[in-house]
């Protein structure tokens, strides 16, 4: 007997290709990041008040929104840089330890990393995290497998390198 197709409540919409640009201020060395939906990443230094910001690195990535197919509501994820898989964190780190515990229960742990403003990153709001968890778990087909996405309550944004996040850093380097 054919099984009925699974209905999903959430779908990824408004997928935008672009670059995650990490820039640094010349004097204070403050760092921040933003998404640029352009064909090539911006490379030129620019002035903002008394500050001079210069792009340091860029990684190909995408942004998306999530639509609730029941209500039609669209939730924007423009502040999401990417997802960090717990196993990409340092052994012994808090996230690695929690991830190992979750793994024992067939749960794969990811942390949602957000863009870094001048005042520092803010964790993704819990309501948005709930939507992300629903979106990705609805796509799974293995019956016991689960994904758990957490907001960055660990201050990982300040500790990790962008290469650890599941985005396309160094894509042109095929080594």
């Amino acid at each position: 007997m054919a099984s009925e197709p699974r209905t999903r409540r959430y779908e990824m919409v408004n997928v935008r290709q672009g670059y995650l640009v990490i820039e640094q201020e010349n004097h204070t060395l403050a760092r921040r990041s933003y998404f640029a939906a352009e064909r090539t990443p911006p490379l030129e230094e620019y002035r903002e008040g008394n500050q001079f910001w210069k792009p340091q690195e860029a990684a190909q990535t995408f942004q998306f929104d999530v639509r609730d197919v029941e209500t039609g509501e669209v939730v924007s994820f423009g502040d999401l840089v990417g997802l960090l898989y717990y196993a990409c964190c340092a052994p012994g780190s808090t996230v690695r330890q929690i991830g190992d515990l979750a793994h024992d229960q067939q749960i794969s742990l990811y942390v949602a990393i957000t863009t870094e403003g001048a005042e520092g990153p803010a964790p993704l709001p819990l309501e948005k995290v709930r939507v992300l968890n629903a979106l990705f778990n609805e796509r799974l087909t293995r019956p016991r497998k689960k994904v758990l996405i957490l907001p960055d309550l660990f201050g990982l944004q300040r500790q990790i390198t962008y290469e650890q996040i599941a985005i396309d850093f160094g894509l042109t380097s095929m080594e």
Partner: protein
Amino acid sequence: MKIQELAERLGLRPATKVFDRDVTGVYISDMVSDVIANAKAGDLLVTAQAHANVIAAANLVDTCAVVITQGKALADDVVKMAEKAEIAVFTTALNRWQMATKLYEAGIR
């Protein structure tokens, strides 16, 4: 078709333990962001990238396995990560186009 049978037919070399699952489709990409956005659970992921984030993306999407093309080798930590996530990884000397044609000839659509 199961991944074990497909691997034997195409001469894929296992780089990890084989976690046998049904192959329900194929997705070919070298961008982890593209995989996250567009690959489907059960897809066989064919890629030239052999780094840890490929496993992170494959696990998030729940691909049935990963094939690394052009004879690239996996680092030990990537092998461990894939095995822990129960994602079989294979390598092949073929490039992505050659791999795509072999998969089509094997009946994977």
